[in-house]
């Protein structure tokens, strides 16, 4: 359900750009993928209190699409992790703007500990 809604939002957000001429359209941004190895010495739960840093591959997408009067920004961080974040912002200069976002914030208090030990 979530992925269908996101896909629908993405497609419908591109509607304003149909009328833009090729000269007006510009696409800029950055995309990176990076492997990460994490070695935590100490309190792992505190280290990851509001984030999800662990061994794995982390990705980021930042795109800005400009077509004359209309613009569209898309950002995605920590894709697939517990602190993943997606933002879609667009609008028409001088008329309106919209902002759709999805942001996961984990809150770790402890890990693997019970009241019995």
């Amino acid at each position, binding site marked *: *359900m979530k992925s269908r809604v996101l896909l629908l939002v993405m497609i419908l957000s591109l509607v*304003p750009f149909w009328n833009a001429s090729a000269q007006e359209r510009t696409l800029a941004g950055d995309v990176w993928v990076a492997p990460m190895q994490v070695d935590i010495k100490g309190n792992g739960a505190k280290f990851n*209190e*509001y984030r999800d840093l662990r061994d794995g591959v982390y990705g980021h997408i930042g795109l800005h699409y400009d077509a004359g009067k209309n613009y569209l920004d898309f950002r995605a961080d920590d894709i697939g992790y517990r602190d993943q974040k997606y933002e879609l912002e*667009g609008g028409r200069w*001088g*008329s309106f703007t*919209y902002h759709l976002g999805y942001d996961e914030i984990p809150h770790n208090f402890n890990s693997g500990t019970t009241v019995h030990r």
Partner: protein
Amino acid sequence: MRRFIIVLSILPALLSLWGGVSPQDARGSEGTVGTEICKGCHEDRFNTYMMSTHSKKGIPGSPANKEGCESCHGPGAAHVEKSGEGGVGIFIFSKKLADAKAKSAKCLDCHSEQQDLTFWDMGRHKIEGVSCDNCHTVHSGTRKNLKAPQPDLCNFCHKSIRAQENRTSHHPIREGKIKCTDCHEHHGGFGPTQLKADSVNELCYQCHADKRGPWMWPHPPVDENCLTCHVPHGSNHNKLLSGRVPQICQSCHDSTRHPSTPYTRFETFQGPTPSNKMFARACLNCHGNIHGSNGPSTRGKVFVR
């Protein structure tokens, strides 16, 4: 809910079909020379200007649809005639050459009707001599033309807040999950800290709704002000508390029943019968529902589990 999300997703497309305001044509005025002349000498500044939203002709009323560089810096004919000599009416956004009021006035010529600037005149930033160009720059392609992302931008001046954000117990500000502008109205608002709500509690309840109640047995300081016990930006005590439990509890509960005993190492660690008053969560070991309780009878009244 599903229908609501779908309608919400269709909304941007529908809005885009609305015609909006057409951009005005570029026009010149007396004493102006045009952007191309400025570019001849100030190409680096011109290039950074072209990266910003102000250079976009699609934006109605933008400098690109007016006099370009001269929309903000003033007519440049005299400046060009004297081969780029300074002090000939060119407005420069510099601390030495213009005060904060004059610099902000330049921006407000166009942005005065912007909704989030309604309270700029009564805001703390204006009173303290902060101008638009302290945070924004026209010469960049950054988001909202900001000179740096939050919280670094705010922390550049608010250094004590930065220190608090780096304490062990903190809101997820340094993790990038909460921005300063989520709670504060940076462009001006009511109250000394320009909060985005009528009171501290109303602001906190927007995220911490479980602390709002209503309770059968409310804890009065919770209703009065969250900051009676908590600090907003960071603390070296758990849960953003302004002091350690039980001392913070005893700052009020000092005259009735068992809390009236001052808790020191003699009553806890070194006494003949070590108690739980200083261990683990101290008072909160038993009084777990400290924000308020709906428990029956005396259990709720003293906020025990």
